[in-house]
């Protein structure tokens, strides 16, 4: 019986450029999450920890990132930690693993740089598949020998790459039948940022989301293998600190807006949200929509960890436009409406027919905003 913690893709020093001036804080949050994993390993009394690649975002990450990460890894002691170089932190000359600051790791930390079986004792062996370059079309697990008939060990593979079940050309392809073919009891994988399971091959996903497009990220896996050639048991544990979410939706009336607010609340505390919102607001008589939207935005602005809010007013309501004063402003509005409808406006505004639609749409929104008595 062996119990271990399987994690991957910590991506320490991640840029998170799309979060603008919050990127630094997002980088710092990963240390918090890493610390949580140390605590979990200790609480769960695991025999060892496997980090299946991409511990670091890049070989060039700052010295301070390496130092802080080493400090956290050292806290696993005495639990042995086996770290596999991934495609983000490959085992290359001048790479992250050559750094002086990395040399500070404790003796419980084992960098897996050679494709050779490692006997962990207690009838357990791991088969590391280190990545030594950024890209490759070769299967890194190909070197793992098949289980001999007489082999009674618990065989655990650790690799970083994409399972070849995916279509198209992939980096470091790994046979989806690897675990079966090689007689592995468990194949600890890294590279995919969302949790995925393919039989005994498991991606725990990144421990802390790195983008809006990672539906099930922010987990680690605790694996129990009772005996050789016995199906492993695993427990997926959520550990992420921030919640990333994006919304792109139409608001036609107050009901739509209320539903949207319900979804936001379901995500948990606003303070942990990294959120991107794209709204298309349909013009209507009901000014409450605008009022409520403004309130929501103000609330998120104040509370959310990161907010990116974009909105456009898209539809034309002739009844509403009738509210604009007759004369010159009405003429401008009609010209803008014509352009949006693909028509050439009446002279003298016909010269503006080729204007960018986004600009015209915005101009229309602004005109209505002026009518309402102000603009945000």
């Amino acid at each position, binding site marked *: 019986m062996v119990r271990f913690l399987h994690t991957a893709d910590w991506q320490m*020093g991640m*840029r*998170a*450029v*799309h*979060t*603008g*001036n*919050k*990127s*630094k804080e997002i*980088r710092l949050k990963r240390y918090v999450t890493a610390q949580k994993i140390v605590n979990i390993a200790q609480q769960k009394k695991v025999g060892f920890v496997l980090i299946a690649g991409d511990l670091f975002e*890049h*070989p*060039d*990450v*700052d*010295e*301070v*990132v*390496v130092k802080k990460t080493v400090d956290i890894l050292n806290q696993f002691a005495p639990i042995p930690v086996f770290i596999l170089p991934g495609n983000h932190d490959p085992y*290359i*000359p*001048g*790479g992250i693993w*050559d*750094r*002086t600051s990395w040399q500070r790791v404790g003796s419980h930390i084992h960098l897996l740089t050679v494709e050779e079986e490692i006997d962990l004792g207690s009838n357990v062996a791991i088969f590391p598949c280190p990545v030594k370059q950024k890209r490759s079309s070769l299967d890194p697990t190909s070197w793992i020998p098949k289980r001999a008939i007489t082999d009674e060990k618990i065989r655990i593979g650790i690799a970083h790459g994409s399972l070849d079940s995916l279509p198209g050309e992939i980096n470091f392809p790994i046979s989806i039948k690897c675990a079966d073919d090689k007689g592995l009891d468990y194949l600890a994988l890294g590279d995919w940022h969302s949790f995925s399971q393919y039989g005994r091959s498991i991606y725990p996903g990144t421990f802390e989301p790195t983008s809006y497009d990672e539906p099930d990220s922010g987990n680690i896996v605790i694996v129990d293998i009772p005996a050789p050639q016995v199906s492993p048991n695993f427990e997926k544990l959520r550990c992420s600190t921030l919640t990333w979410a994006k919304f792109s939706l139409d608001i036609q009336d107050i009901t739509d807006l209320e539903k949207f607010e319900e979804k936001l609340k379901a995500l948990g505390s606003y303070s942990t949200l990294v959120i991107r919102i794209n709204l298309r607001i349909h013009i209507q008589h009901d000014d409450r929509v605008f009022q409520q939207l403004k309130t929501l935005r103000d609330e998120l602005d104040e509370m959310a960890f990161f907010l*990116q809010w974009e909105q456009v007013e898209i539809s034309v309501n002739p009844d509403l436009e009738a509210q*604009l*004063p*007759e*004369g*010159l*402003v009405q*003429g*401008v509005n009609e*010209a*803008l409406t014509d352009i949006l409808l693909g028509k050439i406006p009446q*002279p*003298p*505004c016909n*010269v*503006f027919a080729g*204007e*960018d639609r*986004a*600009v*015209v749409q*915005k*101009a229309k*929104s*602004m*005109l209505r905003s*002026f*009518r309402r008595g102000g*603009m945000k």
Partner: protein
Amino acid sequence: MIIEQISLKNWRGYREPHTFSFDKGFNLVVGRNEAGKSTLFEALARVMFDRFSSKAEEIRKIQPLNSSLGPEAEIIFIDNGKRLKIKKRFLHAPISELSSERNGRWELDHEGDKADIELQKILKGNSSSRASQPEHRGLAQALWYLQNEDPLPKKVWADGIKQDLAGIIEFVIKRPEEDAICTSIDDLYDRYWTSQSGKIKSGCELASLREEISQKENEFEDLRIKASNVENLRLELEGFYEIKKEKQNSLITAQHELTSQKQQLENADRIEDQKRVKDSEITELNNKISGLEKELKTIDRRIKIIYELNQKLSEAKEVAERCEADSRIEQNTEEKYHQKWKNDLEPQLKKIEDELSLLHKIENLSRLENSKEILHEYLSKLSKADEEYKIKKKKLTELIAPSKHEWHEFEESWDQFQRVEAEAKASAIRIKFDLNIEDSDIRSTPTASHTDVKHEYSVLTPTIFDIKKIGKIHVRGGGSSLEEIIEKSQSFQKSIQNTFSRFNVRNKQDLSDRYQNRIDLEREVKQLKKNLDTLLDENKGKNSDDEFRRLEQEIAEESQSIESAPATWKKLSGKGLREKIIQTEKTKKQLVEDIEKEQLMEKSSRDKSRALIQNAIDERSKFERSNSEINSLNNENVESLKNYGSRDNLVTLIEKNRNLLSTATGDLNHILMDYEKMVVLPRKLYAEGEHKVTALEEQIRTNENQIIDRNARIEESAAQGLYSQISDLEGLLETKKRRLASVQLEANSIKLLHDMVIALRKEQSTMLAGPISELVNRYLVMLTDDSYAGLELNEELLPIAIQSNRYGTQLPLDSLSYGTHEQIVVLLRLALGVILSKNERNLVVIDDRLVNADPMRMKRLSLILQEVSNNSCQIIVATCNDTPYTGIKGHVISVPSDGKLS
């Protein structure tokens, strides 16, 4: 608005009250220059638009000269069918009264400021407290074309004009809501764009963001380059690791090869020993042969030298003997020369020298005697000079005569005496007796001296004159001065007499002669002393007597020494003696030369003899040396051949050793073939292998250093936090770019709104301009007979260009003649008048503006004026010449005569 009547008093030339009435159609105000036509219009404008309380300079100018009364005017006008009257007085006791006619009676509606304000409302004016300008006059700005005012406004017409036109032309008037939106658009537009050029406003958020992003992008690019340098370092590092791996493999291979070559070299030592033995044997044989050959060569060289020395030996002996014989001959010759000069020439020379000595002595004797005679003569001269000197000196000593000092003292006393005498004479009392007596009748005691005048006496001392038959007269001076003078005179006289007696003379002349005698004698003694000193100087430092005695002794000695000389020589004259001496000296010289010549020959022979002897000695010595050398060489050869017996034996021995050497060399060649294969080549390969290993080790060390260097540089880069800097900057750029996109969209959108508003506003203006242009153009065609067809107005209803049918093109307005330009302005104002008078007649004023129109144009213009006045407007035209307007039916007002006195 039209006017009916203008009354004015105390207004420039109109001191008395005048009232002018106007028709509602065409009015022609006619008057000569300065008659007061423009004053009427001035009154119209000032009363209608100026505040009654204004004290502006323009108002003050209205006041008649030398008048303190306030200018005053009253205007009756019709507005909106209502008859109104405004009365204003300026400056002094100013008033403003607005009245309206009700039921045929005037009723005062407003007065003071309120009257002014109400009037402005009616006229749509906008006048301040100061004198009004055209732009303050509402519609009147366009309809009243007064003198001294610009033909057209610079930028825009007054607001009232466009409003009225818009109302008339039925365009939609802006509403407050629209204004608010337009203001918002303008405000937001102003935030991003410049109002003039429509460019992005410097310092606005859009510009700042663009600038900031550009700057950050540059920074980002710099960081990216630095990051790519790290990547390059890593690539280099990869290459270095590859090289290291390759070099290490090469090193292992090279070390294996070296081991193998070392094994091959194990047999080399044996072969090398064989070679060394054989090399040694050959060297030994070579040395031996070389020694023997050297010895043989030495023996042969000695034999050759002995032979050569024997040759030289006989030659030396022969030369020595010949030299000795020659030497003897030379010695004989030398002796011959010696005998000749010693025995023959030298006695002759001795004799000649003796003779010459005698001759010299004779000559010397003669010279000594001559010197003695000169000395004798000198001594006589000296004795004579000394004697003469002593005589004169004695005479001088004995002479009784004043010295120079005494003479000068005397002369001084004499002069003073003379002066005192003259003074006494001048001071003497002169007494003249004018009596009938003879001189002889007068006696004086002491005797007084006569002057040149008859009976006049000069008295110096108290004198008694005894005059016969008359009596005595005592005369004496009144003061002491005359007596003192007389006393001084006597004293000097006494001193002079003493001098005379001392030198035993009677008068000054004698004393002077004595003094001159002394001077002459003294000069003579001085001259003699000088002569004596000169003579003594001639023989200075010598004792003449001793000299004389020495000469006498020398003469005696010399006389004795020439006793042996022939008597003839002694008798020779100086010249003869000198010739004899010269002759003898010449003979002596010849003899000396002959002796020297013989001595030279003697010396030459002696030198030759000595050289020959030395040569003979040298040859003898050489002979001895060669002989000894031959003996030595023979002994050395005997010694050298002692080991071999004979020279032939030595030659045989050498040949034998050469054969042995040949055999040994053959053996060595065999050994060398193995040596090359088994020693030289493996050793070369081993050395090369060693070199290769060393080089590879060095390369690996260099490679390792490069790896260390690149790793250090990568770490250094990481330590700078480049990766997070890039991340932060990229994040910031992302934020800024998002903000820029949003701001740019807003800016573009507001620009679109703004541009649309502008376009629509412009269209509005064009709509206003349309009817006006149309009317002006109709008038223009009438006026210019189709030369000009279309006047283009801008959105402010101001003319900007004109269509010329003659040139088929548009011309700028300023290219027209002054007259045409003025006529167009008049037409524009008429057209505005017509349009604005759609609902009510309005007044159009043209103050003397058409003077530049030709008769044809004037005639056409009259038609237009007639049409306008008939159909639309009240027109008042001022002119000094009514002829051009005769065709127009209207009211003619002569100024000032038609102004009825109130």
